[in-house]
């Protein structure tokens, strides 16, 4: 069985009156891709930055490769690689220079030529940082995170703000890291990213982990229901919608009525009948198969992007 390489126990972090992290605990095993999934402001970045040694927790313990990130200094930094939520480098630093510079700080150095090739930056080796596109900058940030052949890689929202094509390229790179058995701690608010890339996911909200498991386990825990989101011409009563045939759960999100259906066809038929009887009209209807988004909504009553 894989050994825990990251151990977090009862971590707290506040900024003034704002409690960003409130008693977070989890374990990441060696070779695992572990995701912290949650909306912006959930406390993901604060947690990761404590693990990177960039922030001091108010209380609780964090260990990475058996080391205390805050106190182990240089030895600790030799073992990790990281992509920050936003990476910045001097405008007139060239791609190859950036890799060579950062590699020079470490004892164990990956070949910068190899990294340029792997991250498709060979043609941009002499380009200034300011000349790179968003995707190229992010690929460079990922390459820089690997210059020291790290045991553990922290990726804080690695695809945020990137277009879908570039996002898919980054997914391929992270999948490659998984094949190489690197331990990866990834934060994201993209459901698709967590489902596709993570071996296990912790759902985070308001500074707390509210559920942990494999994506499959988490989805199964949402009772395998289909989510049906409808907008109606006139308001409907909760009791009426909740009582429809095939509907197992119900909630409202703004002007959207969300029906969780264990038997979707029956639920739709009974909804239409109910609306006809009530002289109401269906304006829009969208159906979703069970996803981590459903788990999040079930647990918090909100969407991830709200």
């Amino acid at each position, binding site marked *: 069985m894989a050994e825990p390489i990251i151990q977090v126990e009862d971590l707290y972090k506040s900024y003034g009156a704002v409690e960003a992290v409130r008693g977070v605990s989890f374990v990441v095993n060696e070779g695992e891709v572990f995701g912290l999934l949650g909306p912006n402001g959930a406390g993901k970045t604060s947690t990761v930055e404590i693990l990177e040694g*960039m922030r001091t927790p108010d209380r609780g313990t964090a260990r990475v490769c058996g080391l205390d990130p805050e106190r182990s*200094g240089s*030895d600790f930094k030799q073992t990790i690689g990281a992509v*920050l939520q936003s990476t910045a480098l*001097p405008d*007139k630093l060239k791609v190859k220079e950036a890799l060579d510079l950062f590699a020079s*700080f470490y004892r164990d150095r990956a070949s910068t030529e190899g990294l340029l090739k792997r991250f498709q930056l060979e043609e941009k080796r002499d380009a200034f940082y300011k000349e790179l596109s968003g995707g190229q900058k992010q690929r460079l940030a990922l390459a820089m995170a690997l210059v020291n052949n790290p045991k553990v890689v922290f990726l804080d929202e690695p695809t945020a703000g990137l277009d879908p094509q570039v996002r898919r390229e980054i997914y391929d790179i992270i999948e490659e890291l998984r094949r190489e058995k690197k331990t990866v701690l990834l934060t994201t608010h993209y459901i698709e990213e967590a489902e596709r890339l993570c071996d296990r996911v912790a759902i985070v909200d308001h500074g707390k982990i509210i559920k942990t498991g494999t994506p499959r386990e988490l989805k199964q825990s949402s009772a395998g229901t289909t989510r049906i989101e409808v907008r109606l011409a006139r308001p409907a009563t909760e009791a009426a919608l909740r009582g429809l045939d095939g509907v197992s759960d119900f909630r409202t999100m703004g002007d959207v009525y969300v029906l969780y259906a264990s038997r979707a066809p029956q639920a739709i038929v009974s909804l239409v009948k109910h609306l006809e009887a009530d002289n109401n009209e269906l304006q829009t209807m969208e159906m979703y198969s069970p996803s981590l988004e459903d788990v999040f909504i079930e647990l918090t009553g909100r969407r991830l992007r709200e």
Partner: protein
Amino acid sequence: MASNPISNTWSLTKIRIRLAMRNKMFLFFSLLMPMIFLFLFATLWGKGSPEKINFILGGILTLTVMGGFWGLSVQLVSFRELGILRRFRLAPLGSGPMLASSIVANFILVVPFVFFEMLVAKYILHMASWGNIPAIFLLVMIGSATFSAFGLVVASVTNTMQETQIINQLIWMVFLFLSGATIPLAVFPGWIQRITLFSPATYLAVGLQSAATNQVVAFEILTEAAALILGLVVAFEISRRIFRWEPEAKVPARAKIWVLAALIPFLAFGAYENYSGRMLKRVSTMMSFIDRPAAGAPAKPETEQ
């Protein structure tokens, strides 16, 4: 095993030199500006007197050496504001190599500019002599490090670029006009001259002017060198202690008092110079030397080495 601070400093130094050479603003302020001043002052005050060109060169070299104060503080603050320092923080680097590389890079960049200015003064403006070269380079070396360290202190105590620019302007004005670098100290009333003895720039300007006009040998500028070295040590240690990697890590207003703490060595040296009158006497001798008739014999034999 910890990472090697010396090799880290050297890696950063090389990159900072490359970045500076790619920065048009840096080249303008470090190379072109002093050259404009050199020709301007030579045209206004140096005509017909090769000795005056020596004196003017002393002031121009002072401006070149002090330039690091301005450039480094602005660069460090912009690196912090843009989040560039955060990325470096992830690497096994301490604040020491980050700050020391600024100083070393600045020194390496200043030396060729100093050479160039001396060549222009000698061959285009017909300067009387090369001055005392060992004394000039001793002061250039120490001065560039000291004024870089002052820049790092300013960068460490300011929270925004705007704040940095304001503090820099205030300090720069004092360095520029109350040191002898642009306006000879001898033209000021006695009480202003006494006040200037508390400014680090005065030690550099008077030292470089004395060396450029051949009024001193390296041994005779030891007081200036000692003041600047002590200033360097204090300023570097202060900037290392209050260095911040994070853009959001703001310093309280009272921390700005550290800028004054960096000047403490110059309070002591200023008191000593006021008491001894040594430096003001040198200023006066230097003025008599450059104001004498052009055909006159040198006030002191050349001690070029």
